[in-house]
């Protein structure tokens, strides 16, 4: 039984007279307590999947078809208010850029406790106490001071810790991490990844981890889905992916990575032929589903 089930999700951006497919019948399935990596280059549609789950799709993007089932319930059939009750409580987000994801005019404490009072209905004083405990849990030194600080007083790594604390604060069942370490320095990235996995294991949360970095995938993910132009090309286990990638595109991505431990390994850009082939496939898919 799986926690999250995305079935044949098709999203189209309708702008003026043109319409662009953003997601082409995407299917994913996430098990309880597992980490699913969603991998692709920019424009592959990986963030769009997250937005569809979080009800953050742009106004002009329409879900044409498909289903998102969370805990056996269809998210798309819920009312706006019902969905808001889930967001932040059962489904939480760790955003991409910690530098801009905290409101500059509100204190760290406000950020943390407003979620707690809103979703758990506890008092402000209690929420503050819990917030301090949460900051302590994500290994922030001196949480009593940090709780009254503003985001600009914290470093990037600290901010991401705060955001992780926010995400885990209501013990959600699913966390969507949208490139959570892309904006961070590599040493900070490692610490933040460690923290995310520690918290994930502690609370047995399912984690949808969106990234473009196969290196990060290798370190944190159990399952991987490779995306290209709004399609899922390959859906496999992480072990399988690095052992013997199933799709040519996956192999091409691995081949394009420079590796510091293998200086003599040639780096090969994804070949034009492969890209053309993939694009042709996309066109085929679009034509086949044109009348759906």
């Amino acid at each position, binding site marked *: 039984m799986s926690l999250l089930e995305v079935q044949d999700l098709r999203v189209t951006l309708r702008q003026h007279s043109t319409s662009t497919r953003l997601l082409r019948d995407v299917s994913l399935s996430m098990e309880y307590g597992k980490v699913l990596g969603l991998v692709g*280059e*920019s424009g592959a549609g990986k963030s769009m999947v997250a937005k569809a789950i979080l009800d953050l799709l742009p106004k002009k993007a329409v879900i044409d078809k498909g289903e998102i089932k969370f805990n056996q319930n269809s998210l798309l059939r819920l009312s706006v208010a019902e969905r808001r009750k889930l967001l932040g409580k059962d489904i939480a987000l760790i955003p991409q850029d910690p530098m801009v994801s905290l409101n500059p005019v509100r204190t760290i404490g406000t950020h943390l406790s407003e979620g707690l009072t809103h979703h758990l209905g506890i008092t402000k004083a209690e929420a503050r106490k819990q917030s301090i405990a949460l900051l302590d849990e994500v290994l922030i030194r001196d949480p009593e001071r940090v709780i009254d600080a503003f985001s600009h007083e914290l470093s*990037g790594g600290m901010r991401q810790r705060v955001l992780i604390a926010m995400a885990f604060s209501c013990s959600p069942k699913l966390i969507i991490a949208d490139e959570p370490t892309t904006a961070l*320095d*590599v*040493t*900070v*990235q*490692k*610490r933040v*990844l*460690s923290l995310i*996995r520690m918290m994930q294991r502690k609370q047995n949360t399912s984690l949808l981890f969106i990234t*473009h*970095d*196969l*290196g*990060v*995938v*290798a*370190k*944190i993910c159990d399952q991987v889905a490779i995306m290209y132009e709004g399609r899922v090309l390959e859906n496999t286990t*992480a*072990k399988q992916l*690095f052992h013997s990638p199933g799709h040519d595109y996956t192999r*091409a*991505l*691995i081949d*394009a*990575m*420079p*590796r*510091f*431990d293998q*200086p003599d390994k040639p*780096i*090969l*850009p*994804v070949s034009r032929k492969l890209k053309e082939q993939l694009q042709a496939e996309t066109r085929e898919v679009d034509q086949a589903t044109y009348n759906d």
Partner: protein
Amino acid sequence: MTDPLVSANRLSVSYRIPKTLPWEEQQYFEVLKEVNFEILPGQRLGIVGESGSGKTTLGRAMLRLVKLSSGQLLFDGENISTLKQSALRPMRQRMQMIFQDPQSSLNPRRRIANIVTQPLIAFGKLPDRSALRETASTLLERVGLNPDLIDRFPHELSGGQRQRVGIARAIALEPKLLVADEIVSGLDVSSQAQIILLLESLSRDMDLTLVFISHDLSVVRKLCDSVIVLHQGRIAERNSTDGLFRFARHPYTRELIRAIPLPEIDDNWLDQNNDTQSKGGLAMQIKNATVLVTGANRGIGRAYIDELVKRGAKKVYATARTPSEIKTSHANVETHPLDITDRDAVYQLASKLSDVDLIINNAGVNMMSALVASDGLDAARAEMEVNYLGTLSMCQAFAPVLKENGGGAILNMLSILSRVNLPLMGSLCASKAAGLSLVQGVRAELAAQNTAVVAVMPGAVDTDMSKDFPPPKMAPADVVSAALDGLEEGLEEIYPGEMASGLNQGLSADPKAVEKELAGYLPG
């Protein structure tokens, strides 16, 4: 030796921090702090650092695009640190830059043709305007772009295309020096690979000196032949790319390298606490190292061979006076005869094994001889000959080899007896003490060439040399393992085992008490 193209001497850049009140003292923020480096013609230098390390400022300072606050900067032999912008202008043909953000570095109101030919026009190298389109097309082709793009505006191109336009503009004047600032950081891995390959071929074809600024060590490793690691405005480490990655010395560099997530499944990677810092000395990774071990035929030496192979050393040269005694079946272990007291032989071997980057001076003798109580100097002489002079020969002969290979390390097997004395073995102790002194001296002498010099001082070890010692005795494998751990961690003095570390602590607390206690410790 060729003259450097760029050479910086105590280069500093600082910014004024705006004062709130006029009578306050002016505060400065130092972005670069007395940086020294040289770039040879044709070199591909990577500058690596995290955000805020000053790497972008360093790149811009090299081209005098920011004001230098002090220090000297030579370009092509000419001092440009204080030249006026107008005087710099003609030199700018020889130094160009590619910027991090192609969106902001291309003027949004100009067409691509105008952007790429702008340098040529600025220097009057395109007197005939009718040739503009043709020249622009040629430049675009050189960077692998479709020449049809010349009439487009920058915002009509993709990120990778824009970055190529930036490259085309930078190479239009055929500069000698090209500074590329984080130019692949915003790109997908596929475009990134294309840009790296393009830079590689351009720098080869055009005889460019390339300064490649990046936070990504993997890319730098691929593209550059030498690296500067910047940390908080200072150069933490400079080495050949190979040298840096094989024995990263600065704790910061090591942390950087350890933090790179390789595309390999490794469940433990995230659990490795990357807060364990080095103990301040130079460190070296055994993986992929080429190691020479002396005295490899017995006890500890043998253990070294096994442990080195286990830890992924690329090659191990096992030496002994009688190499036939070395028993090993590993393919990457090579045996050589060596008597370290034979200075010529040592030098001969050094000229042969030019790829060594770790020397483990393990060979030693113990004549079990007292000082005053023994007659004659033979025992003492023999011990000094091997334990001190032989080791010194090794250091002398191999120091240049290590330097050539980027620094490397020398690990000398001493004993806790280097620090304390045992009755009836005074002669050995004296030679071991000389060995410790040797380590300290050599370390000081080789600091400039980035060579780690480490002393390993175990207590009693269970080998045939110390068969007369009472237990407890350490297994050789444990000693070796502790020694290599210490080396990888950056320790300068390693005390494997409880006995050694206990004595070391005792010595720093109360040396007299240790002396008293040891007076009763008698072998045999």
